[in-house]
């Protein structure tokens, strides 16, 4: 069993968890992920590893459905049923020159280890993060500390630029910024839009695909994506891929494969219902 050492909801629905697993802590490289299970009946879900320290590692988890909901309702001191990792190929970390990093949602956390490693290689780091509103921004100080330029975009304009990463990126490029490499992490739609911006300028672009996963070690094919016309598995060939080669339309359809099941799951979960009741009426005596 794997202990949750610390847990805190950083901003609404995004939780920072520090989990004890020495193998992951020792071996994880930027860009790799773990597969987690909250309990024996839970799903296996991938989470990007953001930081490692001694025998623990940190993730930033977006609470979205039944399984992330179960984890969100756990407390420090409790145990996760399964933690397997580090999985996936590490991100490409080299000296490129000036690197553009774009993060949205859980991706704000996930780009942090990339920014840190790229900075350590001597790159000039330009970071853009996006959130729906200012209260959903987190990790700002740590990201600023490893960035040479730092920009914020919000959909409601409450902070920074009114728009998205791509809005800022487009402006920067048009104002004369030159980038030698770009990495984007966030929802599929965001990564696609940003890749489309960098494509005409031929900026080498990498995205961290967050496909549905099951085993995480290449035995099921659940995470298959078309990249450059070839089938790749996000768990063993990725999760980082060339953003200009990804078949985004196919990927978005594949990500929606279980929407109906996800609805049923969430709505029929006694776990979630109990948590909601507890949050309204306080802990029950049962």
């Amino acid at each position: 069993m794997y202990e949750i050492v610390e847990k805190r909801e950083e901003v609404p629905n995004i939780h920072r968890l520090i989990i004890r697993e020495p193998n992951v802590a020792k071996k994880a490289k930027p860009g790799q992920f773990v597969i987690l299970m909250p309990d024996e009946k839970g799903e296996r879900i991938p989470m990007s590893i953001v930081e490692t320290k001694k025998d623990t590692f940190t993730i930033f988890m977006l609470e979205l459905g039944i399984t992330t909901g179960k984890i969100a309702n756990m407390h420090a001191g409790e145990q996760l049923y399964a933690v397997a990792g580090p999985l996936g190929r590490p991100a490409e970390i080299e000296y490129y020159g000036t690197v553009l990093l774009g993060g949205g949602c859980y991706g704000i956390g996930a780009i942090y280890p990339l920014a840190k490693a790229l900075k350590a290689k001597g790159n000039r780091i330009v970071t853009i993060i996006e959130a729906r509103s200012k209260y959903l921004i987190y990790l700002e100080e740590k990201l600023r500390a490893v960035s040479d330029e730092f920009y914020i975009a919000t959909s409601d304009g409450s902070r920074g630029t009114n728009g998205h990463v791509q809005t800022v990126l487009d402006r920067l490029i048009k104002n004369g910024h030159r980038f030698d490499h770009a990495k984007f992490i966030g929802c599929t739609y965001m990564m696609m839009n940003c890749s489309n911006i960098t494509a005409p300028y031929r900026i080498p672009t990498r995205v961290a695909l967050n496909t549905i996963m099951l085993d995480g070690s290449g035995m099921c094919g659940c995470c298959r994506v078309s990249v450059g016309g070839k089938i790749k598995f996000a768990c063993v060939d990725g999760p980082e891929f060339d953003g200009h080669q990804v078949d985004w339309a196919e990927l978005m359809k594949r990500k929606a494969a279980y929407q109906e099941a996800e609805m049923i799951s969430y709505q029929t979960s006694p776990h979630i219902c109990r948590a909601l009741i507890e949050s309204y009426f306080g802990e029950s005596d049962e």
Partner: protein
Amino acid sequence: MNEQPPAIRVKNFEEVPFGLTPEQARLEASRCLQCKRPKCVEGCPVQVQIPDFIALIAEGKFVEAACKIKETNVLPAVCGRVCPQETQCEATCILGRRHEPVAIGYLERFCADFERLGGHVELPKKAKPNGKKVAIVGSGPSGLTVAGDLALLGYQVTIFEAFHKGGGVLVYGIPEFRLPKEIVEKEIHYLERLGVEIKYNHVIGKCKTINELLTRDGFDALFIGVGAGLPRFMNIPGENLNGVYSANEYLTRSNLMKAYLFPDYNTPVIKGSKVIVVGGGNVAMDCARTALRLGANKVTLVYRRAREQMPARAEEVHHAEEEGIIFKLLANPVKIIGDEQGNVCRVKCQNYTLGEPDASGRRRPIPIENSFFELEADLVIIAIGNNANPLIPQSTKEIKTNKWGNIITDPIGRTSMKRVYAAGDIVTGAATVISAMGGGRLAAKAIHFDLMGVSDPMITTACQLPKEDE
């Protein structure tokens, strides 16, 4: 043997055959001629002492019979259910020449179940600890066999398993209605009682490398039993549509993650109404019969050869037919067609005919030009086999593989890397549980010889790796 009737069993995940009663078992066991030169033993990949255990059953000594089997086969409850006896022990049975062969498989299952259900499973005598440590990668049939054999010989054994549950293909590949998972758990518990340690959620090649296990972690030898865990797709248009699964994914969702109990278990699986399964082996049968139990109205198996060439176990094909699965033989998909949302809705297939035998000895399937037809489908499962999972070879350059990614070994399981052994599907390609166990047994003997100098008639002293181009 009494079985659940087809109309009832397609609605549940319980076993189909009820198993022999003690009276039936003794009667069947008394049919055995107790041949002086038992042909059945020759037909068994692990040389179970078949006439000996059958004699014990005939005398009513059921627990002793189970112990007798366990001298050579650590998983009798499993093998009694999943071995293709009709091509092994029962095929060579002398009685089978004129009459029905002795029902060896049913008898094996009977006494293993009897011992297990009786509650107390005797532990065999273990040798004193010899101070040697062996690491086993993978808790499937070959890994479990090596673990059991070496634990009895006094080795300290640690199994590293990538999943959160042990058993490998026994737990993720074979459905509940063919092999109850409770049995697999009990078998693993038996090994733990023998002193075997199992570490779950350890993906060797990622969280640790083989080199680290052999040097930093102090293991004297290492056995690789990771299986053929890389799904094979057809590479036809439309294979990435929603509702198209590899057999591995479909079965892992249903068997390991228990999606058949959704939403109580949270992992979903698409429950098609018009299901197409591509393939003709045991895996294809398992997928088709699982789809029925998950509520499909129509399940069609599409296979490019004829009935006689199907590699599936005879009992599975028989059960599948009884359950109403449609066999569309001498046909193969050429294109999968989807709707605007990206969900599968039709499969275009081509008719085939049989030509000259190919490398496997079976007649080669030949597509018939301009002979196509379409089938409606909302779920398509590709069950055409598995290739070798690349994780270990990728992270361990010293281990040589052939062009298909299978680890090259000498006849008893030694790889090109010193102190590293391998058996099962990662060496042979996708095969059977019992052949993986046979390979594991040999590798255990090789380890015992190389580490402790204990000889065995099956051992060769020199490592004779086959030439690279073989």
